[in-house]
């Protein structure tokens, strides 16, 4: 995988992860172009598209679009499930994750992604193992109370 972008329906970038070296300018250009392309697509369209010499795999969860760029020989369907597994991880960690969780705890979203994907490849596919790693950091911390009730992006609450 070359990069992963998370952006909202309004085109706001919520998370960006680049696995190939690119200049900031190039990153901004790519982001602008892709956000525009993906947002312009209709709901029933195919989740894959050719873009430059890469393949784009994207999926929408509630208000958020998850968008990955993979190389020609990479597997599109398994990439869709990489996205889904990441959403599940976020969901499990935050408990019915919503866009606000990712905005306010962006650093956690990055940490979870790093445990799951490294260098653009899947590092650990077991949900338990990923969350075990991420929760180690939180062990000593107190929990603060739930202040917002927003719609979950997966659409079901703590189903697992």
């Amino acid at each position, binding site marked *: 995988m070359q990069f992963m972008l998370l952006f909202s329906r309004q*085109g706001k970038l919520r998370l960006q992860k680049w696995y190939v070296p690119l200049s900031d300018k190039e990153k901004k250009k790519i982001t602008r172009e892709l956000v525009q392309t993906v947002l312009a697509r209709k709901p029933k369209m195919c989740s894959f598209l050719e873009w430059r010499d890469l393949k784009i795999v994207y999926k929408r969860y509630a208000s958020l679009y998850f968008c990955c760029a993979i190389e020609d020989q990479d597997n599109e369907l398994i990439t869709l*499930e*990489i996205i889904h597994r990441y959403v599940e991880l976020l969901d499990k960690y935050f408990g019915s994750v919503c866009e606000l969780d990712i905005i306010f705890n962006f650093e956690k979203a990055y940490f979870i992604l790093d445990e799951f994907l490294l260098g653009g490849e899947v590092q*650990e*596919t077991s949900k338990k193992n990923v969350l075990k790693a991420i929760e180690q*950091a939180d062990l000593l911390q107190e929990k603060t109370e739930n202040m917002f009730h927003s719609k979950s992006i997966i659409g079901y609450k703590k189903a697992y």
Partner: protein
Amino acid sequence: MPAVSKGDGMRGLAVFISDIRNCKSKEAEIKRINKELANIRSKFKGDKALDGYSKKKYVCKLLFIFLLGHDIDFGHMEAVNLLSSNRYTEKQIGYLFISVLVNSNSELIRLINNAIKNDLASRNPTFMGLALHCIANVGSREMAEAFAGEIPKILVAGDTMDSVKQSAALCLLRLYRTSPDLVPMGDWTSRVVHLLNDQHLGVVTAATSLITTLAQKNPEEFKTSVSLAVSRLSRIVTSASTDLQDYTYYFVPAPWLSVKLLRLLQCYPPPDPAVRGRLTECLETILNKAQEPPKSKKVQHSNAKNAVLFEAISLIIHHDSEPNLLVRACNQLGQFLQHRETNLRYLALESMCTLASSEFSHEAVKTHIETVINALKTERDVSVRQRAVDLLYAMCDRSNAQQIVAEMLSYLETADYSIREEIVLKVAILAEKYAVDYTWYVDTILNLIRIAGDYVSEEVWYRVIQIVINRDDVQGYAAKTVFEALQAPACHENLVKVGGYILGEFGNLIAGDPRSSPLIQFNLLHSKFHLCSVPTRALLLSTYIKFVNLFPEVKATIQDVLRSDSQLKNADVELQQRAVEYLRLSTVASTDILATVLEEMPPFPERESSILAKLKKKKGPSTVTDLEESKRERSLDVNGGPEPVPASTSAASTPSPSADLLGLGAVPPAPTGPPPSSGGGLLVDVFSDSASAVAPLAPGSEDNFARFVCKNNGVLFENQLLQIGLKSEFRQNLGRMFIFYGNKTSTQFLNFTPTLICADDLQANLNLQTKPVDPTVDGGAQVQQVVNIECVSDFTEAPVLNIQFRYGGTFQNVSVKLPITLNKFFQPTEMASQDFFQRWKQLSNPQQEVQNIFKAKHPMDTEITKAKIIGFGSALLEEVDPNPANFVGAGIIHTKTTQIGCLLRLEPNLQAQMYRLTLRTSKDTVSQRLCELLSEQF
């Protein structure tokens, strides 16, 4: 505020993020950010030493600001300090900052590497993990130099924790990708291969990625991985769905690992018989499972299962040695072609394309032709239709070429603009390659020009001429067909080119028929002459002189034409020269000399079709290899393309298939691409330097711009050299603009490059598509550029058209604002008085209304005002306003994302020579912009 704030809530950070989210405007956001930056800067510079928590909080704020898209030029040192903290969360934030905002400051890199080194040596697995993540995220050469030796040791050491091994494997992979020279193979490689046998599936997953990448470059070193991968795969595919616990994903055992193992196997040829049997069993199991009823209705289940299936099919195609598996794969994909999931149809079309190139499965693929043609007609997603076109191209052979070409041609009539050129190339290639009957070929190409003339590149029409010249059995037919095609009142210019060339060569073959006598042929061609561009007219002049030789009876008529002022005194040097020389030639030369000079063109030497070369360039070579080519590699070619024509003996002096019929080489053919920007000698370099800057807007550009707000056609810009004319049309949120560049001088413009520039904000809202124009504009000539416009959402700025070219020795650079304004996407709406006021009241929110009172700049004429309001795009509503002197309008702005209803009212005050203009729309930015635009008009 977070929904759940696990771990260490950083309250200050959450408040800051809330503040940013509450900012009403970009300006307010920037203001808030600058305030925060000043605060952080003073904290970092302050005398008081910051505790770890504060440092972490501020570094995290900086990171947030950076991720919003702002530049950050400090804080790196504080982040580096966090790396050496003993608190995990502080260290973690430090590493995150470094990973995202790495800076090539060498002093800093040294400090970072030092911290990483300490963490790697700490033997604390969580710290080691963070350090490895950081190396993998940054992946710079400096890091490779520092750690490429160390990481393999961590990876294969017996006492390394599993999670650290996983990170180490992928970290090494990243370093190998960026700096392969710094990762030498060694003893560790054989031990890495054995990780495929590891107990921990997470370790196996990470190791498989690493091995796959390394094996591509060093196949020998890793060839033992094949049998290990096969046995691992075998254990996975035969396991029950519960065996692998958390590695089972929606009832599919270890899908990620399976896909990776199948990828690894694609680095190698089919394995030895013993291993091969086991692998074939695995692949059969995977194919069998596809036929079983699904274990879950969830799309995740079917995606994971099919991901493995598609990867298995890729491996089967890669091996291309088991006919049975290939045919089964093809049947499976055939089922997917009609699946209700768009994703699966897309992938099946894509995968079948490669299957079509295997001799074992080519016939099986062909049986799906009707389904694929149907996909072309019914799929709603252009990317899927594109795949269908690719597959039809791949499955085409002699037996189905006529059908496929016919289908592609009929699709071309409605195809998306983005893929037209590619379809044209594909049709041209297939028609040539599988033509048994060349009359069919000629018909097909003429159809192409008729349907999609703008997308027919030079290569395509050159090629049809080459083929007609080389095959005498088709020349008469070609002459007759182009003659008939030219009868159409409006022909594409490419048809005039082909027609002119072919009649000039072979018009005599149809001259016996009184309906196509020489004079009729000539009159027909000449009736198109004045509508054509300079190069085409030059070509036609050559046709005329060829006619003088072929048909002595029209010599006098042609001489009259050549002698006319519009030819002999033409402002274009090339046309003038041709007219003068041809006239002279026809006057002084004897019949024999004429016959020799104007002899029929010799056959072109056979070589790779330039169209094929063009498609390869467009799509990359791998996508164009086809069955014929791969068969040729395997065995003798039994039914190749068209029979080769005896090659000319002087291959070096190949006549260029340029527009110059005589081959006299009076002018070199215009280069089709932009000239190389460097390496063309000192002079060119001097120019190319200056060419990079964009000129400021030309004086008067604003005034001209305003004149186009209420009209669509006219002259946008004019100076002593260049005139730019516009003609545009708009419908709903789409538009098309024709830009005409006229060279007012008698000298060629070189390197002529118009560029459309959209400011950053505009780019997201307005979509412009165009193709480059010919870089040479002859003196007196006019070239045309078409811009396709799509309004995505409302916008304020206008795109800038920058034109750069060389005139004589000087570099010219002109910029003008292109009058694409929001009101162009207006559709007028008629409504009764009552409706108007009802809506007017609905839009009473203060932001929705914009008002402007201004002095009249032009005489206050009622009729002109009405015309302007209508030209502006809105409907002019009569008898709505109680005061008949006022003007009232209504319309809808169409953008791709939304439609915005707009109401306007203009109240003239003749005594004061003032107007009051009020706009109400559902969107504040739209009200604002329309008011600005319209106020300038009165």
